[in-house]
C-alpha cells in the first residue's frame, strides 16, 4: 500500500488572463490536464483547443496523442520514452507561450446543416423505447421527447425550442464517446437549453438524429443506442465508405472548433438530401471562418443579464418537472 491515493500531480493558479490548471495522473501512460473549475464556460474549451493546436505544432518524442474534452485534454505518452517530469515541463512551456484567452483567434469553420424537427425516425425511436423498455418514462409522454424538453426549460411551446436551436451557432467542443460524435454547445448563451438524459438508455437511434443531454447537443454518427433526448434529424456526419466527397479524406464531417448552424427543412426534403449525400450529388456548406474569442467574450458580457433571466426561468421549470 502506498499511503495516499491522491491523483493530482501538479497545479497552477489562474493568472495573466489564463485559467488555472490541474494536472492529474491518468494511469502511467497519460496525464489529464484540466482547466479552470467545473463550470459550463465555453472559454475553457477555447483554451483547451488552443493548447491542443500548440501541442500538435511542437512534437515531443514519446508524446503519443492528445484528446480534448470540454475543459480538459488527455495527453497520452510512452513512459519508457518520455519521463513524466519532462512531459509536465513541456505542457507548462506551452501554457506560458499561449496568449491570454481574450487575444485568441481559433481556426474554425462554419458548417450549415439542414434539420427536420419532430421527424418520423425520432418518433419511431421513442415509440420503440416506450413499447420495449419503459412505458412510463416522463420524457417520452405523447410519443416524443420534444414536449418534455419544452416543459423542463419552461419554454412557451415547441416553436420556442426550435427557434432556440436555429437562432445560435453550435460550438463543437470535442469529438468522442463514439467515432465521429460531436459534443456541441450553443455559442449564444441566451439559447442554452438543458435536459436530463434517458434512464435507462435507449437501444436504438437513427443515423443523423440530433439530441440534447444536459446542456450538450449531439448528432448520432451511426445507428446506435443513446441517452440524449431526441428532437430532430440532420444529414450524415460520418461515413467510412466515403460515399460523399466531404468524407473522402476523413470519415468525420466535424472537428473540434467547428460551428454548426441549422436551418429548418421538411422531412421529405431532408430525406431527398440524404439520398443526394449518398449519391455524391450534395455539397456540404462549409466556410473557413476563424473565431475571435475576444469578440465572443464582449458579446457574452452584453448578454449576461438576459441569459441569467432565462436561466432563472429554466431552473424554476426544472424544479417542478419530474426527472426520467
Amino acid at each position: 500500500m502506498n499511503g495516499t491515493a491522491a491523483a493530482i500531480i501538479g497545479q497552477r493558479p489562474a493568472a495573466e488572463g489564463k485559467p488555472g490548471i490541474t494536472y492529474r495522473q491518468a494511469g502511467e501512460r497519460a496525464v489529464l490536464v484540466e482547466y479552470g473549475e467545473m463550470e459550463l464556460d465555453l472559454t475553457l474549451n477555447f483554451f483547451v483547443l488552443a493548447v491542443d493546436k500548440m501541442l500538435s505544432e511542437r512534437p515531443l518524442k514519446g508524446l503519443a496523442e492528445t484528446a480534448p474534452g470540454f475543459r480538459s485534454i488527455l495527453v497520452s505518452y510512452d513512459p519508457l520514452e518520455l519521463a513524466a517530469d519532462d512531459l509536465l515541463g513541456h505542457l507548462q512551456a506551452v501554457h506560458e507561450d499561449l496568449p491570454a484567452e481574450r487575444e485568441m483567434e481559433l481556426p474554425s469553420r462554419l458548417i450549415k446543416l439542414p434539420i427536420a424537427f419532430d421527424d418520423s425516425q425520432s418518433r419511431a425511436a421513442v415509440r420503440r423505447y416506450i413499447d420495449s423498455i419503459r412505458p412510463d418514462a416522463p420524457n417520452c409522454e405523447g410519443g416524443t421527447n420534444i414536449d418534455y424538453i419544452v416543459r423542463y426549460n419552461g419554454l412557451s411551446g415547441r416553436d420556442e425550442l426550435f427557434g432556440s436551436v436555429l437562432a445560435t451557432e453550435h460550438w463543437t467542443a470535442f469529438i468522442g464517446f463514439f467515432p465521429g460524435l460531436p459534443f456541441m454547445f450553443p455559442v449564444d448563451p441566451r439559447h442554452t437549453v438543458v435536459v436530463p438524459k434517458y434512464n435507462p438508455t435507449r437501444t436504438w437511434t437513427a443515423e443523423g438524429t440530433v439530441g440534447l443531454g444536459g446542456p450538450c447537443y449531439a448528432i448520432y454518427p451511426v445507428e446506435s443506442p443513446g441517452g440524449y433526448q431526441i428532437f430532430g434529424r440532420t444529414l450524415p456526419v460520418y461515413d467510412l465508405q466515403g460515399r460523399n466527397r466531404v468524407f473522402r479524406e476523413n470519415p468525420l464531417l466535424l472537428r473540434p472548433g467547428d460551428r454548426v448552424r441549422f436551418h429548418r427543412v421538411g422531412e421529405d426534403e431532408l430525406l431527398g438530401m440524404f439520398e443526394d449525400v449518398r449519391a455524391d450529388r450534395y455539397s456540404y456548406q462549409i466556410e473557413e471562418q476563424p473565431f475571435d474569442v475576444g469578440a465572443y467574450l464582449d458579446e457574452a458580457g452584453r448578454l449576461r443579464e438576459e441569459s441569467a433571466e432565462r436561466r432563472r426561468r429554466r431552473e424554476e421549470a426544472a424544479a417542478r418537472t419530474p426527472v426520467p
Partner: protein
Amino acid sequence: MTAMSAEKIIDVLEPGLQSTVQDYPGRPGMMRQGFFPAGAMDHFALRAANLIAGNEQSAAGLEVVLGNIALRFGADATVAVCGAEAELTIDGEPVPLWEGRTVRAGSVLRAGISKGPGFRLYVAVCGGIDVPPLFGSRATYTMGGLGGLDGRPLRKGDRLPIGGDGTGGDGTARPRRFRESSRPAYTRDWEIEAVPGPQAAPDYLTEADMREFFGRTWAVDRNSDRTGIRLESFRFQWARSGGGIAGGHPSNILDNPYPVGAVNLNGDLPVILGPDGPTAGGFVVAATVTHADLWKIGQLRPIGDRLRFRQVTAAQATEREREQRERLSEASLEDA
C-alpha cells in the same frame, strides 16, 4: 494439386461465441476522433502467440471468447494458441497451449469450451490474418462496427486470408514454445494493478473510499464485454455532495476524455473500460489499470471471477511494463 489445396486461407467451420480479428496495439492515436484503440483484450496472450508463430507481436490473430471454435487451414501453416485453459486438438490429436505446431493443408484446429481459469483464447498463424487494415490496424472495433472482417465477429463459412510477412515464403516457422516460467498465472481471484486517478481523493472521493476501492474484493458482472468489465455496486461516501453542473450524483462530471483501462464509477457501479469502450463520458475515473496488467481484463470470466485492485504508482507501473517487454521476447521461447 488443386488450387484449393494451396490456398492461404483459413475456413471458419465453427465461429465460437464471439471471435474477432485483433492485433496489438490496435488503433491508438485516434481518440480525438472518438475511436478507442480496440486490439486484443488480453494483449499478453496475443503477443506471446505471435512470437511463437514467428510473427511480429503486433500481427493480427483471432480473439476467441470461451473457445468452441474449428478452423481449417488451406495451406501448410505454423499456428499457436495462448490464453484460457481449453482442450485443443489438431486433426483430433491433443496439442498444448503456448506451443507452436506446423499443420498441413486441410488440417483442422479445434478448441473446446474453456472451463477456465481464463476466458479468451488467442490464435496466431505464421504470416498473420491478412484482412485489409483500416487506419493502420486490422483490429475489430465492435462498438464502432469497423475493422477486422467487415467490423463484425466471425461467422460460419467465413474465409480468412493468411498474410505472408516473416514466413520465409512457405507459411511455416520453427515450432517453438513459450517457456512455462514466462507464462502468466491464470486464476479465479485476480489481482489487478492500478494507479489512482485521474479523479480520486481528496476532491472527488474520500481517502476512506479509495481504501475501500483498493481493499475490497469485487465480483465480475455477467454483462461484461470488450467495451467494459462491470463490477458490482458499492456505496462510496464521496467527497462532494453532488455532481455540480454535471448532474445530481457525485459521480457525474463534465464530459471528459477517458484513458484506456479507466475504472469509472457510473453512479455507484465501477466499470473497467475495455479496448472498445467509449473515449469520453461524464463519470469520475477512480483509478486506471496499468498497461502491464490490462491483459487480465481479457481473461476475467463474467461468471464467478473476482478481483482486487492493487494500488501502484505510475513509476512502479512503468517498471512492470519494462519487465513485461523483456518477458515478451525471444528469450522466453524454447524449441518445442
